[in-house]
Every structure is written in C-alpha cells, then in structure tokens.
C-alpha cells in the first residue's frame, strides 16, 4: 500500500490543480447520485407503504382446505367417456389434523406467526336491519401476530370473551350500534345467538370494516357447526418476498391449498415490479451518463497532461503507476460526487418528509447510501479505464515534446 501512496499524491494534486474541472464533474456526479438515491428511497418508501397497507390487514400466507371435487370412475382404455359434471357446492369443512399442522408450522423459523381461524358466513340482525358478515373465530394472542388488532381499535376494548365480539366501524355505522350494544348473529345452522359488542375496529379497508366480525374461536366453531375445527390457518413470514416459495413448500407438505399474498395480490405485485423496473432503468441510465461524464473529463485531462505524463515516465513512473493515477482520479470523482450527492438526497428526502404531501414517509436506508457511494466509486474507476489506459500507453518521447 505504501506504493500506492505516490499515485494518491499525484492524483490528488492533479485534481486540485484542475479545480474547475474537478468541481464541475463532482457536481455532475453528485446530481446523478442524488437523483438515484432520492428516486430509490422514494420508491422504496412508496412500495413499503403500499405493501404495509396491504399486508397490515391480511396474512402473508393462508392455508385452506382444498376444494371438494367429483371423483370419476376410471374407464377402460379406448373408451371415450362423456361427462356432464356439476361442480360440487363447497361446504364449510374443517382442516384435518389442524392441531398437528399448527404444531409443525410453529417449529418453522421462517414463519413468525401461525394463527388457526374458523371463518364462515352469517347474518347480523338488529331490529329491522340485516347485514351479511363474515364470522372470524380467532385466538386473540395468535391472531394479534398476524393483524395487530390493538392498533386498529377505535372504541371499546380488545376482548373476545364469552358472547363478546369485535365489529368494524362501517358495520357499526350501518347498524347504528356502538360499544355495549347487542346484536343477533344468525349462521343458518339452526342457531342464532345474541352477542355484545366489546369493541369497534377500523382496518381502513371499507369492505373489511363492513364485513368482519371477530369472535372467540370456540364460539365461532359452535355457531358454524364445526366443533373443534378450523377452516383457515393464517401465516406470517419473516421476509414477505419469500412468501410465495414458502407457501408452495408448505402447500406440498400439508396437502392444503396454500395462497401467498403475492398470488392473491398479483395486480399489486405487477404494479410494484413495473415500478421497480422503471426505477432501475432510471438508475442505469443516470449511471451511464455519469460514467460518460467522468470518462470525458479524464480524456480531456489526459490530453492536457500529456507532457506531465511524459515527465513522470522519464523520472521513473511505470505504465502501471500512470494507469493507477488516472483510475484513482476516476474513483475520487465517484467518491466525492457520491458523498455530495448523498448529502443532497438527504436534503431532498427531508424536504419531502417535512413539507411534502405527507402521504407516506421516505426512509433512507444506510445500505442504500453505502451501495450508492461504492457503486459510484466503482463506476468512476470503470469510466476512467479507457483514458487511463491511453495515458499509460503514451510514448514518453512524444509526450515530453508535446506542447
């Protein structure tokens, strides 16, 4: 490394001497890096926000009983069978051996929460009003890890004891009820029950706020005629983007229908990946123009310094040393430019977060900054490669005579 010291000294002296060039290309790199960092952070923030809103109220993976299908008697070879088949009506069924499945899933480290749920349709009656709802029977402490209900409560208590239910704000409004009111739940199973409203939540999705009624797992089981059974197992994973592959492996293991949020929100995922693609294109093209900027400044610099390169060669500088002097200049352009650029993007993000529309918060990840600075530095070195090679290969005799 002691060897590289001289190259550093020469590179820095050259940069300081060509102050105006250095200043301008540094600004150019800084602008490019600022755009890249700001756009990346903006899109990261936006996507994180969209995903959080989407996933805040749903499980990452749902395990369901597979649909019942008609089994056809196999026919002998060579016989054509015409079938007029009616699809079977899907009745509410419990997942077989769900306790074992839950116990097995609890062991898996890539899952952060496992919540068995019994879910089925019901009608809510209050006076003249009837509303169709989805009963969701849950174990509170397990379900809380899937959807943090306490964050969504708008009134009442978070409690689903005996004959207590939680309903959504929209449903409460439709029925004209408040905490402490009584409603009648009818599941069409010769069973209807009067329950108390313990609390009202607002998930922020109108459909859910109008339809969801949370109650205790056992109570829901008895009301839906599925004593001891569950219909869905909700899962949460540590890394949301691995949900699909985890869902597939769990689906194969358990023989259940396994749906990841990625599959059920394919529109959203398409939008997100299209957005990521366009962001990446912006980054690549800005990066390319930054690289060309550095390369052109250094090309000019090589011409301007032809004679000095010749003198250095005559005083004992090897081709490798000259090469390194110019590669270092490229690296320094990238390094300093990206440091200023990161600072500028911090300012932009601060302005956006402070004075912007306030729809979402943009975080600037440290990994993004490290990546931006190191990528810019590497880009600088690569951009410097061609001019540096030219500098190294100058014929010292001609270089010294160059005026």
């Amino acid at each position: 490394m002691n060897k590289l010291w001289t190259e550093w000294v020469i590179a820095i002296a050259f940069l300081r001497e060509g102050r105006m060039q250095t200043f301008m290309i540094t600004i150019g790199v800084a602008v490019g890096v600022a755009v890249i960092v700001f756009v990346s952070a903006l899109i990261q923030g936006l996507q994180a926000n969209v995903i959080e809103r989407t996933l805040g109220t749903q499980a990452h993976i749902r395990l369901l009983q597979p649909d019942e299908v008609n089994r056809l008697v196999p026919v002998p070879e060579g016989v054509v069978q015409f079938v007029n088949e009616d699809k079977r009506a899907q009745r509410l069924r419990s997942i077989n051996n769900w306790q074992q499945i839950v116990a097995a899933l609890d062991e898996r480290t890539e899952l952060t929460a496992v919540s068995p749920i019994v879910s089925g349709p019901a009608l809510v009656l209050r006076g003249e009003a009837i509303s169709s709802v989805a009963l969701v029977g849950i174990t509170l402490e397990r379900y809380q890890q899937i959807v943090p209900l306490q964050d969504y409560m708008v009134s009442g208590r978070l409690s689903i004891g005996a004959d207590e239910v939680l309903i959504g704000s929209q449903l409460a409004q439709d029925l004209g009820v408040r905490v402490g009111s009584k409603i009648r739940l009818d599941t069409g199973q010769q069973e209807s029950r009067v329950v108390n409203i313990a609390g009202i939540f607002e998930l922020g999705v109108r459909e859910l706020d109008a339809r969801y009624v949370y109650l205790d797992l056992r109570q829901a089981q008895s009301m839906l005629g599925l004593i001891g059974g569950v219909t869905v197992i909700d899962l949460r994973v540590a890394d949301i983007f691995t949900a699909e592959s985890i869902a597939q492996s769990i689906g194969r293991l358990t023989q259940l229908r396994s749906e990841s949020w990625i599959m059920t929100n394919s529109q959203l995922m398409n939008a997100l990946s299209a957005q990521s693609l366009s962001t990446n294109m912006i980054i690549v093209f800005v990066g390319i123009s930054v690289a060309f900027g550095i390369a052109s400044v250094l090309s000019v610099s090589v011409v301007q310094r032809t004679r000095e390169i010749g003198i250095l060669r005559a005083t004992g500088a090897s081709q490798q040393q000259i090469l390194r002097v110019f590669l270092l200049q490229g690296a320094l352009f990238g390094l300093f430019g990206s440091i200023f650029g990161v600072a500028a993007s911090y300012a932009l993000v601060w302005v956006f977060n402070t004075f912007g529309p306030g729809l979402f918060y943009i975080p600037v990840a440290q990994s993004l900054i490290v990546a931006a600075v190191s990528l810019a530095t590497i880009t600088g070195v690569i951009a410097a490669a061609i001019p540096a090679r030219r500098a190294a290969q100058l014929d010292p005799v001609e270089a010294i005579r160059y005026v």
Partner: protein
Amino acid sequence: MSNEIMRLKALKKSYNIGMPNEVEVLHGINLTLSVDDFTALVGPSGSGKSTLLNIMGLLDQPTSGELYLHGQATSAMDDLERTQLRGRALGFVFQFHHLIQAFSALDNVLMPLMLHQGKPDNEARDRARALLAAVGLEKLSDRRPNQLSGGQQQRVAIARALATNPALLLADEPTGNLDSKSAEEVFALFRKIQSEHDCAVLLVTHDPRLSAQCDRTINLVDGRIVDAL
C-alpha cells in the same frame, strides 16, 4: 573497463519501418561513457542528437544494436524493467525545465524517490532538501514552478535528476532556453555535480562556448559520430 557506465554497440534507429518513407536516423553508433565523463554531444539540427539521447535514456528503443547500462544489455527488457532501470540509474534534464506544476519545488525533487519507494521517509526528504541546497534553492523549496524563474526551474530540474543518485545525467539543451548568465550558472552546476556526485554528465548543446568547456565532445553528423575524442 571497470568504470564504464554505458556502452552503445552498432546502434541503429529507423523510423516508419516497413513504410515507403522509412528513414534511418542513426547508422550504427559505437560509444562508451565512463564514470568521470563530462561530455558534450553536438551536432546540427536533424543529426539525431535527440533520438540518441532518448535511446540512451531508455525512453526509446533502438531498431538494432545494443545498449549496455552498467554492463547490462537492455534491448530485451520489457517496459517495466526499463522504467525501473531508468528511474534508478539515469537522470534527465530537459530543455524546457519540465517540472510538474501541481507540485512544489521540493515535491518535484522528491518525485523520482516517491515513484520508486512510495511515501518518502525523512531520509528522502533530507536528501531532497540537500539537493535543493546544492543548487542554491533551499529557501524556495515550497514554491510552485510557476513562481520560479527559468534558471531556478532548471536548477530544480537538475536537483530532481540527481534525486535517485544516478550514474549518468542526460541533459537535452539544458541551457538552450536560458539567458547567458543563467546558462553559465547552470553549466557551472553541472560541473559541480559531476565532481561532487560521481555522476557522469552528457550534455546536448548547440552552444560552442559550452561544448568547449566540456572534457569530451561527440560530434554527431547525419547519424554518425565523427572524430569523437
């Protein structure tokens, strides 16, 4: 001959080889330089002086023939080997006192040492200061080249050429660009160097007054040495 520094044997140099305008500039030069030589290389323009000097300085390669530096044949060396040999054994002084503008006088003198060994130690710095003192510029060591007069710059260039303690100092019309007073001073400096630093000197010059003061004169005419003494 034990005190031989450089020997040129049947050295030829052609340009535009293989093309219709191929031209041979040096037609077989035989020459030996010894430790205590103080030599002037004279000749009319176009006689091949600069070409010969560049070859002797390992900046350029002969088309044929051999150049021995300290008895070592150099024609088969690659660029890196020649660069290292050049940095170690040879010092250059050019007509247009080529200094690097971005560095102070002291750093210019240090440059050959830095290129050779990396970060200069105190010994190297002391040596550079001593060399600047030897050329009478110890007080101006922090000045940039553009803050020095032509004669001062040339003296810095001479100090730089001596930094690696070379065996041979090659100077291409070192006084050609100076007024006669500065030229006298610079020439006197070369003399002093040759005696104090055990360093052979070869000057290319047009000035008959200077060549007359040298111990030995090599006349180069049309790429041939005539009546070398």
